[in-house]
């Protein structure tokens, strides 16, 4: 993976620290700039490399907040976030964040292919165009999610499920090690759910780490190594699984 000449962030593209978990948070407190109280009140999780974790909890419990804080979209009030042993922002290229669909201007005049290509920008930085290799990677990701016939379409002409797949294709094209997926199964058709699920399984097979905020554990419960339950910005320990058992649970067969 070649480094950009002029990276977007001043922080260098740091290498992972040996033996560090893919994601570590310690007593993490995060607040939205405009809100009164914090949205996360001291959350500690430790997710080893190569695991797939479900982030569950009712609306407003802080699932998205946790993902956004890890992605560097929200300021950390106190506590620690480490991605592969590095602070947030030191390794942008290793973190892919799949936003909820509503955060994108789908009317923008851009094709699916170019949307997926934006996943390569972190590796390019300022003043460098996507090259042949970037295009090949983008095309492979588009193909992987079954969007090849739509690659030239303007993004607003896709259905909801297709849009979600396009966003996941971009996350794949980024070739990140830690993928943060915010409600990828929300409001999509069954075919898209299957495709996303398969892609998740592939990623995990490649040793990537996934954190998936979701409502829907009933259908996909078998897809996850562990579950992190959030309620009102705090961790709750369900009887069957808790974050501290993750390492043991990782050994469990990937069923489903």
């Amino acid at each position, binding site marked *: 993976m070649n480094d950009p000449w002029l990276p977007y962030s001043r922080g260098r593209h740091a290498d992972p620290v040996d033996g560090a978990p893919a994601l570590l948070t310690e007593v993490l407190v995060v607040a939205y700039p405009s809100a009164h109280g914090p949205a996360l009140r001291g959350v500690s999780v430790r997710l080893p490399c190569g695991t797939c974790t479900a982030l569950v909890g009712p609306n407003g419990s802080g699932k998205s907040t946790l993902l956004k804080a890890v992605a560097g979209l929200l300021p950390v009030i106190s506590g620690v976030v480490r991605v592969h042993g590095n602070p947030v922002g030191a390794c942008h290229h290793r973190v892919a*964040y799949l936003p909820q669909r509503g955060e994108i201007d789908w009317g923008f005049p851009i094709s699916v292919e170019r949307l997926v290509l934006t996943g390569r920008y972190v590796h390019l930085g300022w003043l460098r165009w996507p090259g042949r290799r970037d295009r090949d990677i983008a095309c492979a990701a588009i193909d992987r999610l079954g969007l090849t016939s739509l690659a030239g379409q303007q993004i607003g002409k896709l259905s909801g499920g297709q849009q979600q797949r396009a966003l996941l294709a*971009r996350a794949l094209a980024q070739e990140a090690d830690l993928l943060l997926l915010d409600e990828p199964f929300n409001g999509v058709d069954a075919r898209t759910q299957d495709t996303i699920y398969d892609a998740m399984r592939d990623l995990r097979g490649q040793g990537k780490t996934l954190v998936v905020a979701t409502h829907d554990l009933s259908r996909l419960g078998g897809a996850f190594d562990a579950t992190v339950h959030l309620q009102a910005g705090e961790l709750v320990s369900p009887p069957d699984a808790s974050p501290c058992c993750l390492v043991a649970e990782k050994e469990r067969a990937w069923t489903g």
Partner: protein
Amino acid sequence: MDWLTEPFRYAFMQHALLAAVLVGVTCAVLGVHVVQRRMAFIGDALAHTTLPGLVIAHLCGWSLSLGGLGAALATALLIGWASRRQAVKEDTAIGVVFTGMFALGVLLMSRTRSYRDLTHMLFGNVLGVTTRDLWFIGGVAVVVLLVLTLFHKELELTAFDPTHAEVIGLRADLMRFLLLGLLALAVVTGIQTVGVILTSALLITPAATAALLSDRMPWRMLLGAVLATACSVAGLMLSFVAETSSGAAIVLSCTAAFVVAFAARSTWQQFRPAAGEPAKKDESNAVAPPEEVSRCN
């Protein structure tokens, strides 16, 4: 063919043509971003707020271009700053600032003797463009087009998906400031050709026309540039033949192009009931029911 080339035998008409085309192309290409980001109102405001800068520069004997540029850049920074803090809604803040600045300009104007010079600022005087003006306009054109080319992928990404931009460390507000700065530059050159009041037409109308005809950014920019060139030539010819205001003639040519494109698009859509559309509709219908189901889970 004589009637076509005849007006452009005069040196002042050649200057005017060069200025109008350069300004038109710069504004049209930049305008594609402005229209897509719904910044049309900001463009209009920037043009209006240059007036006090122009008048003060005129009174002090400074360069008008620099006076206007100073006022426009100050406003651009103010707008960018105000939109980051949500104390007042952005469009409200713009509305308050730009009318106030414009009124200040008019007030200053009414205190000066040479009212006539200043009406050129309001309505433009492309026929009076000097060689020095041309160098300034050419310089701005080069800077704007170069920056838009070099930062195209960043401008595009921050416009449609600022979240992803932030995740990869690219600051969306930085790109917005950059765009506002370019807008200030383009607006000052626009004032030379069509004046303070009509400058936003150069930014909006050709870009809006191009948006009717294509759904790709590069195509829109190319189309906008071609349209702006054609409308500048047509407008200047019109003003020469009919002896009317050149700025208004250029803007009206742009408006006419928009109307034609709008009519053509509507007609085209009526008579070709969408080749690719049925498949797309089916898909979205098929998707709708599961959306409801999965929300309930």
